[in-house]
């Protein structure tokens, strides 16, 4: 029983990381129908910028861990604006169906190479703000930082949902998400809203980066695999549902740790991807997604 609990706890911490990144995919998909395939790189940049601020690699530490978080979120937002401006806006303008795919992938590769030149190709340690010593919950061990990851991720998603539902700007986002042309006719600056959604999505990824960095190692290549897993999560959960991201993340995270223990560590990534295929075959809109009817 303890074993199962331990695996589930680790799976939850892992799954919430996927969920935050997957949430970022949804933010941009809702408003513009496009995705940033560089979400993993946004996470990596966030983590490395955070490391420069709190670590001792660039003459630091300059800031306390908790004070660094808003700076990194702001940096992430800025990075998202750049991606939208260079990679996505031209594609939307010419109504290209797929141009944004290649341009966001291209930007991701560029970001990775830039990061390799600034921070090197090595994995670096991120100083942990809390003690790494685990405490016991029903006999299973949990690190304080793992709890922070889960709570931080939930808080972030809650804040974005609240913003969308309660504030007038949020309503503009929702309106754009529902019908971009109608929202435009109602006087909403939809291209501004799309830029904003990109800023928000990269900011969540950067935030996820500094949350998980103390638990893992930080490096220029850390984003690629995480971004891909999160994409699978977004598809499983449904690209239109915030709830889907959380549930999808938890399913994938827990499936990985359980398979690793009960079947084989060599196969730990298989069940998640099998699930992805099943979802695509049976309910292509995702577990929580609304089926979109596209008129041709």
């Amino acid at each position: 029983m303890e074993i199962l609990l331990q695996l589930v706890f680790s799976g939850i911490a892992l799954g919430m990381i996927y969920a935050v990144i997957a949430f970022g995919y949804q933010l941009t998909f809702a408003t513009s129908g496009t995705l940033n395939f560089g979400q993993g790189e946004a996470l990596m940049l966030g983590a490395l910028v955070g490391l420069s601020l709190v670590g001792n690699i660039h003459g630091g530490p300059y800031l306390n861990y908790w004070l660094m978080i808003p700076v990194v979120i702001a940096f992430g937002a800025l990075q998202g604006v750049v991606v939208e401006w260079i990679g996505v806006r031209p594609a939307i303008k010419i109504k290209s169906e797929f141009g944004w795919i290649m341009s966001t992938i291209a930007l991701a590769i560029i970001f990775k190479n830039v990061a390799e030149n600034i921070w090197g190709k090595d994995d670096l340690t991120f100083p942990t703000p809390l003690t790494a010593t685990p405490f016991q919950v029903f006999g299973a061990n949990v690190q304080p930082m793992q709890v922070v990851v889960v709570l931080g991720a939930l808080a972030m998603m809650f804040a974005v949902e609240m913003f969308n539902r309660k504030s007038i700007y949020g309503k503009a986002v929702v309106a754009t998400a529902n019908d971009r042309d109608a929202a435009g006719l109602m006087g909403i600056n939809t291209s501004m809203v799309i830029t904003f959604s990109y800023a928000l999505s990269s900011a969540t990824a950067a935030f996820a980066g500094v949350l998980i960095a103390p638990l893992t190692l930080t490096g220029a290549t850390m984003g690629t695999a995480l971004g891909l897993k999160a994409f699978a999560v977004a598809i499983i959960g449904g690209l239109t549902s915030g709830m889907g991201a959380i549930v999808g993340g938890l399913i994938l995270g827990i499936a990985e740790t359980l398979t690793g223990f009960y079947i084989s560590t060599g196969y730990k990534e298989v069940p998640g991807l099998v699930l992805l295929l099943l979802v695509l075959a049976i309910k292509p809109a995702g577990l929580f997604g609304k089926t979109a009817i596209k008129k041709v």
Partner: protein
Amino acid sequence: MTYKTNVFVAAALLTWSLAGNAAEPIKIGVTGPFTGGSAPMGVSMRDGVKLAVADINAKGGVLGRQLQLVERDDEAKNERGVQVAQELINKEKVVATVGFANTGVALASQRFYQEAKIPVMNNVATGSIITKQFVGPENKDNYIFRTSANDTIQSKMIVDEAVGRQKFTKVAILADSTNYGQLGREDLEKALAEKGIKPVSVEKYNLKDVDMTAQLLKSKQGGAQVILTYGIGPELAQIANGMEKLNWKVPIIGSWPLSMGNFIDNAGKNGDGARMPQTFIQDGNTPKRKTFIAAYQKAYKTDRMPSAVSAAQGYDSITLLVAAIKQAGTTDGPKVREALENLKEPMEGVITTYKQPYTHDDHEAIKPNMVMIGEVKNGRVVLAK
């Protein structure tokens, strides 16, 4: 310019280039991972090699010619290693190559050197079959030599330390999924079987894995008293840190990359006490070692070598190679190989003084008695007591 001066300049250039030809430098390839998770091995190896070459060039080189290194980053990727091998052989025309930190890269790339009859000095990679890849009826001669302690030696020492000296009976194996990790795991299991011990769990993980919970829980469930590892720095650190996450502490004993800087730094206090076989420890206990360490620290402005073993083995690989070129009196591949197999004079290296390090059938310079057990202590590797 007048016609006359033109002719004069042309003639001067021609004589200069001819003179240059006469003492053209001897090109030696250096291949290793200079970036990524294996970088501490590759970079230290390259730096050791550069020190040896600087020493030799300062004394006038060999056969009256200077040595020139052609360095290429193989990024620890098998396919990149193959490209580097072909470039070094066909374009750069090297007379020999030193390097390979990764067993997989070595196994994928060596074929090209063997076919071109160009000697290779493996100075970091340890996979047992590396020097045996081209023995047997279809290959009369083998061009692959080594100056590192192979996995047969290492796995036996790891098991001796864990089972023989520390009297553990329940052991768990954690190895990465690369050629290196899996070949090493086989060697470990063989060495354990000789002692009549079956590991309680044998787990693997991928490079870049960030969560080791499942693997460690299995080992813990099996009642493991010690973890034997076969992997490289960053993931070894994940293992040590993963144990802290589970609030479970057993000793780690494993192959030599437990001495890598990126394990020691990333594992921090969790890495303290890890033990591993070492051919060289950064401790100036002989005059040769003392000057080597001082030269390294001065040249690369660092107190701790990122991977002292790789640096020393890199240095020695050049020493032995140059001794062979000198004895052969030529840079011709087959003759250099023959000289390597019959080195007459003893060569003083950093690790040991080599007397007849190689024969036709034995291409391993490091013998079991030259390897010791090191231990991570306060961020450095020291001799285990």
